[in-house]
């Protein structure tokens, strides 16, 4: 299990490969479910040129660990890994990576989605967007992932 707060851009594929390499001898997983969130260059009707992510050092990590523990109580999972960017982020960069390893696909899918939704609604991160116009604005709230749009 690992929770990582990154202040530099990271390659999600490399991060996954490295992480999985380390758990391979121990863990007999048959199913891996992964979610990757990537910064887009528009949001809410405006072009966004960059974004700054604030967080609460200490609480954020604690909250992410708690979310993984909750997932582990509800589903049979073998391991989980969360990596989240903070600081200044450019379009096309990875914002968040969640990966869950399990014996069976139902557990991997459900736990990965639970972690992502819980992260979106409870992990202390705040996005400040810098628009192409030069203005900055705080993102007001996250949409629910089970609804469309």
């Amino acid at each position, binding site marked *: 299990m690992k929770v990582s707060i990154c202040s530099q851009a990271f390659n999600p594929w490399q991060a996954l490969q490295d992480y999985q390499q380390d758990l391979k001898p121990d863990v007999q997983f048959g199913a891996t479910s992964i979610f990757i969130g990537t910064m887009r260059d528009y949001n809410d009707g405006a072009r966004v040129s960059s974004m700054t992510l604030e967080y609460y050092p200490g*609480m954020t990590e604690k909250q992410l660990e708690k979310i993984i523990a909750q997932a582990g109580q509800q589903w049979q999972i073998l391991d989980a890994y969360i990596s989240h960017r903070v600081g200044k982020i450019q379009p096309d960069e990875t*914002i968040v990576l969640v990966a869950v390893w399990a014996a069976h696909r139902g557990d991997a899918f459900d736990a990965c989605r639970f972690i992502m939704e819980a992260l979106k609604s409870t*992990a*202390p991160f705040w996005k400040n967007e810098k628009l192409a116009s030069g203005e900055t604005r705080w993102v007001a709230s996250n949409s629910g992932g089970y609804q469309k749009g």
Partner: protein
Amino acid sequence: MSIKVRYFASLGERMGRSESNLELAQAMTVADVWYHDTSQIMPNNVLAAVNMEYAGLADEVNDGDEVAFFPPVTGG
């Protein structure tokens, strides 16, 4: 007793500070900490944490606690 108060994101901007130290003479709730430190009405979407765990506005605070206030989270 001594409480460390922290404000994040848009709330820090609005308060013009990201933290302060509050000295209190008596037992207090999270909501009391807000009013003593800000002298403002609390916006209705403010979230609170005590010692880095989510807390309710009616929760009591103790000497040495860190109390944080922040807007809805927008990570991921």
